[in-house]
Every structure is written in structure tokens, then in C-alpha cells.
């Protein structure tokens, strides 16, 4: 009887798996299922086999403006989309909060910005943002074709809101993608994210 109880306890409890609710470099990226501004559903697995960039966005955030106003973000989007990278802009602002968009507004804004992102995901529930642990706009994630996070954090190493610092900043997303696409190891896999807080509900 003693052995039976023991083995049962061991078997039934098993090794508990700890689910981490965050995107951590070197681990599989959290799954998501979010509709974009055009009504198309996006999941992580639908982009399997491709490099994916997730960019958290809020049109009124000065740090987002820093990178859009200067054309820096669009340039990155274009450069890497041309190389086959799927660039997804994510809006986790809750309804009524700063940066929240209806699908039409999001499409207009995308066009106005001349954004080269493949889609704008509307995550107004904040579910995807929370799953990734997205804290700021812009908070950036790079996911490799196997579905693992290879970079998480700020877009570069200068948290100034002044666009003038961009040319002299180290862009971690570009560095990660350049290395990853060339099959080289990624030097910096994380950095402190900076910017405005994501406007969750």
C-alpha cells in the first residue's frame, strides 16, 4: 500500500510545468490570435518559417513619434520586409485610452505613416500585450522562423525622445535581424524597453 500511494502521488502530480506569461529570449514565443485592421486573423503559427518582428505602437506616444517622425521605423520596416521578414505592428491600447484605433482609423494611420508593416494587429483587450509582457511603446520583439524569441526590449540604446539621437544609437532590432538572417549568433538578445506605458485597460 505504501508503495502504491507513493507511486500514485508521483505519477499523478507529474512534473508541474510552469507557464511563464512573458516573451523571454531563447524560449518559444507566446501564442497569439489577433485580428488585424483588415479583419484578417493572425496567429504565431500562421507565420511559422519566417522571421517575425512585433512592434508595439501608440500613435500619440512621443517615443513612437520619434521613430516615425524621423522615418526611422518605416525604413526598418521596409528594409526587412524586403528580406522576407513579417513585420507586425501591435496596438494594445484599450478602448477609450490613448492610441486606440478602430480598424478604419488603423488603416488610415498606416497609410498616412507610409508604414511598411505587413499588418496592424488590434489587441484592444490587451491579451497579446500581456502575454508578451509588452510594457512600452515602442516595445520590440524579434521571433525566429522556429518560433523562438531572439530579441525583446527597446528598439535601440538611447531612450531620449529627441529624434536627433537616432543616427548615433545602436539599433538592437536591426542588429538582431542582420545577425539572424545571416545565420550568425545574436549578440544582444534583450535590453530595457523604453517609451510610454502601453495603455492597457
Amino acid at each position, binding site marked *: 500500500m505504501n508503495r502504491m500511494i507513493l507511486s500514485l502521488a508521483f505519477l499523478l502530480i507529474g512534473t508541474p510545468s510552469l507557464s511563464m506569461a512573458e516573451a523571454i529570449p531563447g524560449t518559444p514565443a507566446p501564442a497569439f490570435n489577433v485580428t488585424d485592421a483588415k479583419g484578417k486573423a493572425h496567429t504565431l503559427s500562421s507565420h511559422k518559417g519566417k522571421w517575425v518582428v512585433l512592434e508595439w505602437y501608440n500613435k500619440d506616444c512621443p517615443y513612437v513619434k520619434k521613430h516615425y517622425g524621423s522615418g526611422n521605423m518605416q525604413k526598418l520596416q521596409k528594409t526587412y520586409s524586403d528580406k522576407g521578414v513579417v513585420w507586425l505592428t501591435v496596438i494594445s491600447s484599450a478602448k477609450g485610452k490613448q492610441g486606440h484605433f478602430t480598424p478604419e482609423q488603423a488603416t488610415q494611420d498606416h497609410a498616412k505613416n507610409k508604414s511598411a508593416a505587413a499588418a496592424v494587429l488590434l489587441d484592444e483587450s490587451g491579451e497579446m500585450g500581456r502575454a508578451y509582457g509588452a510594457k512600452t511603446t515602442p516595445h520590440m520583439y524579434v521571433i525566429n522562423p522556429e518560433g523562438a524569441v531572439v530579441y525583446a526590449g527597446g528598439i535601440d540604446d538611447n531612450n531620449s525622445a529627441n529624434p536627433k539621437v537616432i543616427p548615433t544609437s545602436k539599433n538592437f532590432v536591426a542588429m538582431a535581424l542582420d545577425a539572424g538572417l545571416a545565420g550568425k549568433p545574436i549578440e544582444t538578445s*534583450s535590453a530595457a524597453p523604453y517609451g510610454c506605458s502601453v495603455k492597457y485597460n
Partner: protein
Amino acid sequence: MTYHYSKALMTWFFLLFFPWIAVAQEQLSADHVKIRVVAPQSFQEGTETTVGILFEPDPEWHVYWKNSGDSGAAPKFALGSPNAVVGPILWPTPKRLPVAHLVNLGYEGAVAYMFTVKPTGSGTLHLEINLEWLVCKEDCIPGFGDLVLKRPVNDQPTRWVADELKIIETFRKSVPSDSESAPYQLEIFQNTSDSLGVRFAKVADRDFKELDIFPVDQGYLSPAAPAKDEKNKHVIFKKNLAMQLPSDLSFVITTPSGVWEFSNVEVKNRTKLPDQTFNFVQLMIVLFSAVLGGLILNLMPCVFPVISIKAFSLLKSHGKERIKDCLLYSLGVLTTFSILGLFFLALKQAGSAIGWGFQLQSPVVILILIVLFWTMALNFLGAFEFGSGIMNFAGKQSKWSSSFGTGVLSVFIAAPCTGPFMGTALGAAATVSAFSAFLIFFCLGIGLALPFLIFAVAPRTLAWLPKPGAWMETLKQFFSFPLFATVIWLLWVLGQQTGTQGWMVASIALLTISFAIWLGDTSKGWKTLMAWLLALSVLFWAGSQLNRYTGSQGASQQESSWLPFDEVQLAEYRSQGKAVFVDFTAAWCITCQVNKQAVLDTQAGQNLFKKHNVILMRADWTQYDARITKALASLGRNSVPVYAFYASDGSGVKLLPQILTLSIIEDAIKNP
């Protein structure tokens, strides 16, 4: 606009669009914030004087500390002077500013960022300050600007306007001093894979009780208030799992004895799990409480009948036989504790954490215990004779295995009765080295086996036991009732886990087994075989029925005043400045149920919570739940009950004693 346009045109452009940086001066006014230099009227040559840049944001707007927390940005200062030595920025201690489930570190209301100025020559001091800042409410507005300070320098003592000096003195007080003069020391340790501990050495009780601690380095640790363990004098921060920890971290700490900055504290065993180092005396104290905890387990209502019956059987045997029995029983207890200890350590090594009482998180194990206790109770009551020995509950076993088996059984049924001593010892086991943890488990076993070990070592004590006689049979019958009570309790636990369905399945199993016992006991031959077949098949059927519920959500009803535990929601309530009480509980934990019935869910208890607007959350650990296990570990615990109180003022978590009273709760609410 290209570069060769004249500077004048540029200036005009800025004047039009950015009027606040029109003319470099001592003050400027921008969106939602006013900024000015706070300086003396004249400086003394060669003397260091503290100068401030005062930020006055609009009500509810804030500016940031050097670590701005989850979002936001620290202001940037570029200071330059041709004729003075300018020191680094002195940052007053920040406040935690919650935004949804995120936390920022900064200042609501006025703040002066300061620095020292030491004029190197006489004449006019010239100081240029280039600023970039971010002012936020929920939205954020960045600003850029320049300030210029010009003041005479002479050989007279620095001359201040009293009100200006007062501003500097006020903010200077909350600028941390170097840790060398601090009355305590810090040590960083890895707590769990997703949390980091900071231990305070040589800290005064009052200092620890009232301390607040802020991580200086941005991004690595959660800026939210860490959990505080007053007993072990450490705090536990949540780690940002996306970031690799650096080799050292810095902290700012405010205590009644002063404000200190501890720079570059080494992060030990960066990749390994933490090993709390005990000195010899501490280890002895922990081991002693483990023995004491084990001893107390003997008196638990679920264990006591089993132990007593074991003691009876000793009366029947004689001399060496008795000693052998005692030793075998102790061996059973110690072996089980050792195996459990190894299992516990293996899981800990694998990076998981489980808690004491985990055996009872499986409905099948509960079913087996229910059947076992039911059968024992029937046997005690004399409904049937089960072989020859009283304790041959598990079928026809030889005597030695019966003694050994009783030992094993005692450990299993004692497990849920986590006494206060057990909590301390097992909490310690989760954070210490493998060797110490194993010793703790072993000492718990020694405690539980102690009465029988004493019988074995000093057989003379056996003489204190009463002489055998007819009274033994009566007492045995009497003890069937605590066992029936245990069955009722376990059925209730099962009901909590699986709903009425599981309760029904178990009851059918009990009925069928009772019938099988009657059938087998009253006749011989094929009927006995039938009885065995019947009993085994109903056990198998019930087990497979209940197995389906393993890991599924229980049908337990949440009383309306208690919200189910949710970390995100908890953070949100805290950010809204609400007080929250979290009850970490489980149906199989008796202490938990006692506190629930006697304190938490009484009218008086509920009124108390309502009166102080405390949000109630219940983390039900009746079944294994990784999130709750993690939440417990981040509080430094791995067993229930744990009562965590988060005060409305945003200060850290306070853990209340395992035996609750209304006054303890009231005290915690009123004196956060």
C-alpha cells in the same frame, strides 16, 4: 529648413513653435511643468554648494527618477561650466506610481534634481544646463530646454535666500548617502527562477520593518514593491525574465536610520538556484523546530488514532519484539520522509516548486485514503476481523511490514496538517542547500517518530503505558469514530476537487467495499474470491472515474465576497490604491479551514474587511496550480495557509501568522 539658413531664422522658428526655450534663462515653463534653477545669490570661491533644478509638474502629472520603472524616462541633464567643477546629479528618493498593472518610479508634485557646484575662480559663475525631460499623467509629453545660471563668486560665504535654501535642504534629505556608512549590509540571492532576493544583514528590526527599496538599474527587476519577509530579513523582487541579470545591481533604500545607495552589489550564483547559507546556530534552530513540528503532528486529529492503535499493539507484544516494532515504525516514518525529501529536492532542482500536502492534490490518492480509513474504522468497530493483527489493514502482511507501513501511513496523513512549526521548517527547506533541506526533512521525521523512538531507546518508558486488558477493545472501538470523521472530511475534500460526482463515486465504492467485506468475512471459498473481485473492481472503477478530474477545475463554490486569485488583477487593485487580502488555502489543509470558519468567513471578519474596503482574494490550492505555486514561492513559502496582506498605501506585502485572529488582521490593516 537647411543648415545655411541664418541662425537668426532658426531662433525665430523656435520662438514661434517652442516659446518655452526662447531665451536661455533661469526658468522655463512647458506643457504641464514649470522648471527653474534653485541657486544661492552668490557663491564662495572654492566652496562646494548644492544647486537644484526644480520641476513643478501640474497636479497629477509626474516626472521620473533615474530608473523610471516599467515605462517613462528619466530626465537628462547636460551640465557645463567654464569656471566651476560640477558634480553628478543627486536624485531624491522616488515614489511608486502605478499605471494599470505597471509601475513607474518618479515624483508626483515638485522635485529638485540637484548637483554640487564648486567655482574655481572669482568673477561670474557661468553654468549652462541642457535639459530633456518627460512629464506624464497617463499621456506623456517630452520637453527640451536650456537654462543658464550666472552668479557672482567672491570670498564671502555662500549667500542664500532663506526659502531657496529650504527647498534644497528639503530635497537633499531624501538623496541617498553612500552605503559605506549604512548600519546594515546587503546580499543578493537567487530566490526562484523568476524572482530575486535581497537579504539584509545586521539590520535593526525597525529599519527593516519600515524600509523601502528601489532597484537603480532599469529593466532587470520589477519596480513594484517587493514582498517583504520580516522573519528572514529579506525582500523578494520579481525578475524581468526577458533580461539577463548583470553581474551586479544597485539599490536605493530608505529606512528610519537614513537613505542609502548600495552600488554594485554582486549577484551571486547567477545561473544556479539559491542556497541560503545558515550558520550553525540558525541551522540548529531550524532543525529543532522541525523536530518540534514533527512531534506536534502526532497530536493531529487525523494522525492520533493511527498512532494510538500503534501504541496498543505494542502493549500486546513483549520485550525485544516491542523494541523491534518501535524501531520499524520509526524506520517507516524516516524512510518516507527521506523519500519525500528527495522527491521534493529533485523537483526543486528541476526548477519547479511543489508544496507540502501535495499528495492530497490528487483525487485518486484521496479516494485510496478514504477507502483505507473506512476499512480501518469498520475493523476497529469490530465489523470484521482482518487477519490476526489489529494493524493489518493492508491485507495479510507480516508483523514487521505492518509496523513499517504504519510509519509510512502516518507521514502521509500527517502531511496536510501543516502546523505552524512545519511551515517555518519547510519554508526554509525551499531556500537552503540540498544537504540542509534533507536534514530538515529528516528532523521532521524524527519528530513524528519521537514517541516510539523513546520507547525503543528507553524501554522502561513502556512501563508507563497501561496494562493490556478488555479496555483496549473498547478504546479501539471508540477510535473508529475519529476515523469516520476523517472519512467525512476527506469526502468533503474530494467533493471540493471533483464536485458531487466524485463524492457519489467514492460513496458507491465505500458501499461496495463494505458489502464485499461482509461477503468475504461471513463465508469461505468462491464467495471470498467474489468479494475480492468486487472490491478490486469497484476500486479500479472509482479510481479511473476520479482520475479524469485530476487537474480539472474543481466544482468548489467561491463565496461572493472572495475573488479567485489572479495576479494581474491583484496588481491592478494595488495600482488603484486598494488594500487586498489574499487567502492561500486548500480544502485539505485543516489550519486553513479553521481560520476560514473561525475568522475569515465569520460575520465579524467580513464586516472588518468591508469596513476598511479590503478586496478579498482566495488562492485555492486544493488542486495543483502552477500559478499559485509560483505566487507562494515569490512570498518565500511552499505550503498553505499563507495570508498575504497588501496595504492600500502601496507598501510591500505583509505575511500574517498561520493562526489568525481578528485582532491580527485589524492590526495589519490599521498599521500597514
